[in-house]
């Protein structure tokens, strides 16, 4: 089975600086804590530098001359400096955790909040897996960078400056000599980064392909097994896996060279300092204590450079992750309500479409001038082949999509003039796909109206014939539903969806194939429940089965985005037109006669 590379994951940020700036804005909301962290970093570094420097007087003034009177005091000072340094470090880490995790939580929450406000079209055009990965992979990367990398980088930079300063203070000449390795380090680092980046891009692409394949194959496992395709799947998988292996081997190799290379260059540095320092001590009178302190510094000198080079990749990955998060946050939300919107109270439920035209994609009209009127409390059925535009009509009423032309009114007001939440609050929708939320059965029904009492929940369940099966569940209404209600049958899930709509007590009811996956006998029960539910409410019903719609007050027959017939069941049958044809199809010639 072939696979395309749509899972490719871009690791290199495109608008790096801009994204970094925005990320910093997020972090910098916690100025106080950040200030404290900065102070602690400075304190820690100062203590480190001072601790190493104190070696000089200790060796020069006490150990070499053999003077022990002040040694205790000097060592005591050294101990205190160390203690302060370590405490500052620990506090710094703790605060960083808080700052980092708070920022990540805020980013995550803002992402979710924004996502909730995106128009339905966004969800129709983006794979759930792709959006999910922003919550998992991308947030992870940002989190890592914020808690580990940023502070490390900051303190590494400061450390570098501090160490350099102290080295200069002890011996400018020795410092200049030991800096010889720096251009070497930088040159080496650049060469490695350049190569490793190229290999990393190849590795990410291969990884994306493989992950895409895994996701698809595991999700479609039933088909794979039914068709005995396991061996083929394993073969294909192995090919992609091998491909990843070759690429990732190189990437890991180049990336891994950085650290040892830096470490060894640092060792060279140590050698140079020892030799030149020794020579200086012999010929130019450098004090031994100073040399000791200098050696200590040169050990510390390599660490920041080392860290910086390792963290560079992390930060780059984090910025790429942040960019993908901001991509979602930057998506335009549902068009805000106009300023002259009205709040709605007692909705009668009169619905009117006037010459409505609509296309999901320009040039491909789905509705080509739909006009009809529904009086309050009337039940209207939409009938027609797949793709006739039935679902679209139901999607337009709650303003999931803006219409291109024409007008939709409810109680005489254009829907754009009604506050979105009060518009949607006045209607309940039961969809073909039955999805539930993690939580108890009761919570799932109560989703329709959060303030509903337990009694009202049960009442709604009774009304829609869900009560009896719920009672048979192990914990009744408190049964925990997980994994999209995997422990229920599709029909049972649908019953819960209907109960959820019932508890909402809407003026307008939208049913999209609501009973298609329920067997005929349960359907009778549900039909009774729905009849009770529909009483006094305006209803728009989609169903393939004509039996479901024969009780409707009015039937609209749709074909390719137009209403081709309308009337009552009896009228339409008598007319012997499109509806009659549809009707006969269902009860027409024998389907099973062997030829």
């Amino acid at each position: 089975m072939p696979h395309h590379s749509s899972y490719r994951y871009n690791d290199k940020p495109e608008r790096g600086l801009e994204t970094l700036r925005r990320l910093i804005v997020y972090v910098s909301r916690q100025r106080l804590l950040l200030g404290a962290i900065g102070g602690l970093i400075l304190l820690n570094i100062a203590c480190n530098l001072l601790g190493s420097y104190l070696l000089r007087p200790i060796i020069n003034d006490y150990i070499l001359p053999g003077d022990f009177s002040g040694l205790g005091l000097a060592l005591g000072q050294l101990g205190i400096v160390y203690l302060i340094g370590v405490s500052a470090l620990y506090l710094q880490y703790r605060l960083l955790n808080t700052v980092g995790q708070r920022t990540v939580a805020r980013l995550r929450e803002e992402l979710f909040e924004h996502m909730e406000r995106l128009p339905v079209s966004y969800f129709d055009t983006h794979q759930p897996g792709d959006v999910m990965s922003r919550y998992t992979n991308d947030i992870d990367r940002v989190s890592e960078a914020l808690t580990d990398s940023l502070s490390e980088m900051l303190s590494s930079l400061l450390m570098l400056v501090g160490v350099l300063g102290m080295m200069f203070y002890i011996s400018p000449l020795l410092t200049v000599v030991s800096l010889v390795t720096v251009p070497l380090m930088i040159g080496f680092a650049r060469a490695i980064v350049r190569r490793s980046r190229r290999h990393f891009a190849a590795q990410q692409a291969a990884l994306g392909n493989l992950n895409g394949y895994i996701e698809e194959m595991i999700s479609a496992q039933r088909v794979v097994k039914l068709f005995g395709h396991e061996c083929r799947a394993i073969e294909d998988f192995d090919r992609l896996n091998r491909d990843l292996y070759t690429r990732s081997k190189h990437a890991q190799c180049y990336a891994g060279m950085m650290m040892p290379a830096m470490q060894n260059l640092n060792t060279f540095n140590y050698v140079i300092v020892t030799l030149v320092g020794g020579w200086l001590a012999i010929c130019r009178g450098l004090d031994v204590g100073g040399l000791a302190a200098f050696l200590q510094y040169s050990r510390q000198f390599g660490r920041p450079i080392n860290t910086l080079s390792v963290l560079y990749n992390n930060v780059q990955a984090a910025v790429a992750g942040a960019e993908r998060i901001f991509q979602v946050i930057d998506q335009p939300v549902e068009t805000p309500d106009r300023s002259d919107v009205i709040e709605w109270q007692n909705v009668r439920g009169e619905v009117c479409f006037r010459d409505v035209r609509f296309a999901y994609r320009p040039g491909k009209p789905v509705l080509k001038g739909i006009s009809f009127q529904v009086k309050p409390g009337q039940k209207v059925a939409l009938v027609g082949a797949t793709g006739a535009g039935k679902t679209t009509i139901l999607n337009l009423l709650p303003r999931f999509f803006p219409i291109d032309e024409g007008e939709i009114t409810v109680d005489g007001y254009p829907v754009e003039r009604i506050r979105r939440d009060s518009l949607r609050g006045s209607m309940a929708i039961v969809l073909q796909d039955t999805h539930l939320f993690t939580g108890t059965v009761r919570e799932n029904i109560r989703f329709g109206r959060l303030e509903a009492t337990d009694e009202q929940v049960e009442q709604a369940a009774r009304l829609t014939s869900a009560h009896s099966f719920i009672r048979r569940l192990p914990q009744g209404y408190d049964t925990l539903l997980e994994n999209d209600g995997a422990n229920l049958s599709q029909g049972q899930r649908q019953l819960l969806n209907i109960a959820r709509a019932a508890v909402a007590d809407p003026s307008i009811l939208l049913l999209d194939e609501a009973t298609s996956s329920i067997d005929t006998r349960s359907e009778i029960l549900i039909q009774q429940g729905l009849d009770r539910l529909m009483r006094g409410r305006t209803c728009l019903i989609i169903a393939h089965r004509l039996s479901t719609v024969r009780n409707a007050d009015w039937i609209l027959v749709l074909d390719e985005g137009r209403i081709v017939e309308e009337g009552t069941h009896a009228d339409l049958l008598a007319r012997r037109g499109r509806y009659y044809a549809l009707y006969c199809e269902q009860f027409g010639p024998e389907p099973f006669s062997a030829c």
Partner: protein
Amino acid sequence: MKLFGVKKYWYILKRYRTGLWVSPLLVMIAVLCETIQPYFMSLVVDRGVLERDMQVLTLLGGWMILCALIGLGANLFNVYLSSNVSTGFGTDLRATLFAHIQRLSFPDMDRFGSASLITRLTNDITKIQQVVLMAMRILLRAPMMLCMAIFFVARLDADMAWMLLGFVPLLGGGVYIVLRKGFPRFVQIQRLIDALNGIVRENLINIRVVKSFVREDFETRKFVRSSEQLKDTVVRASNIVVLLFPLMQLILNVSVVVILWTGAYRVADGDLQVGALISFVNYLMQILMSLMMLSMVVMTVARAAASFQRVDEVLDTEPSLTDAAAGKRMEHRIEKGSVEFRNVSFRYGDGETDLLHEVSFRVRAGESVAVAGATGAAKSSLLQLVPRLYDVTSGTVLVDGIDVRDYSLDTLRRGVGMVLQQSELLSGTILENLRWGDESASMPEVEQAARAAQAHDFIVSFPEGYHTRLGRGGVNLSGGQKQRLCIARALLRHPQVLILDDSTSAVDAETERKLWQGLRSYLPHTTLLIITQRVKTMQEADRVLLLEEGRLEAFGTPDELRETSSAYREIFRSQQILA
């Protein structure tokens, strides 16, 4: 801690045993070359600087540079080696896991859930691979450095070495306590992350419901609650783990002070030289650096421990549905396609109640049987026992008079085709999808099957016809089109028994009628088992099987059932408009 991978994964690791042997050796050489430097330095100070001897200086300098070069070489070679071994290990483990998952049966897969299996194959394996890499590069460095530092210190001064050795248990104890406290929290974090992702996923697929009930704020509040809880737990866990490094630093700093204090007296007494003392302090710094890296590795390992567990869990799951013993199965082929259930009861793995109770019936070869019944009557559960998607809890299912468990899975599933309720297509062209049914099918054969399933016309209406690429899951097709492709795919297998699980629900009545006709003429002798809600379909089947709450309610020709079964009459009436 570091051992838990090695034993379990030895069967994969042993392929790389040369690398695993050589790598520690290289690390040892590299560490040796690094730790010898302060030793040389002490000689430079004591014999060169203090004695003012330039010759010693140049000689020692040469040695130092040589050692540094050897160290660099050893390090780079180890990088190469560890990259090969770790990516190779990750690749092999992933392949093993994937192959193992292919062997698992549905009950096993249900237990894990596909989302979780995907994470295990991707994220978890990547983390494990990372651990192997880090282990080979860094894990051994710190202990080796400690050993060698102590060795060189001992060469310079035995008493000082004892003192250095005294700090080791202190360090080890500190690390142990921190990890003991930290680890359980990471497991908890993983659970919270799963819950949080659950909310996101639900909202992604449920957005129309959320929006129509105006529950955006409600869901956001729910998410924020979860997110804050996760944040607090992560902060608490990390606060423990970050103790690690400051703790080590503190211990080493204290040892610097102690060494200077005792060292000073020994220098004064003349049994220790200043250079040696400076080198001790240098050694401590070296040890600190390597310990710091070790703590980083340990943290990564701790975080990856959960990944190890999750991969193990899958690998340790024995497929609960296995092939019949080799001797028994070879002879059997499905030729006619009769199906018989004998006293079949069934429940899902850890379910509490039976879904099917003692169901017995017999379907003749070539017959068409419509399976009807209320929601939750276990219609799908009943029929998926035939191709052994699940095994019976008790009783027997027979095809051509032979227990399905006595066929090889391959033969059984070749003979018993099934079209699932949810149509699953894969990315690739329409042709490639159809050829899943029969890889060697010629183009005319494919077209013939597609015609029978009423798919040919819409396929050729696409600009690229049979070569039209489908997005994942066939996103660019309508529900009815997907169902028809799935049926065509099953037809290409020419099964002796074909099960259709409500597979035409999105197909309109006219097309459905043609489809049944096409299907019958394409597979005139195949036994058809059809789960359906439509009375029309039931009426046209040879016999109807009515299930009620897992029990066989009625089984007979449609006309018989209209006479004898009130349940069937009820169904019949409910759909007959002009009764």
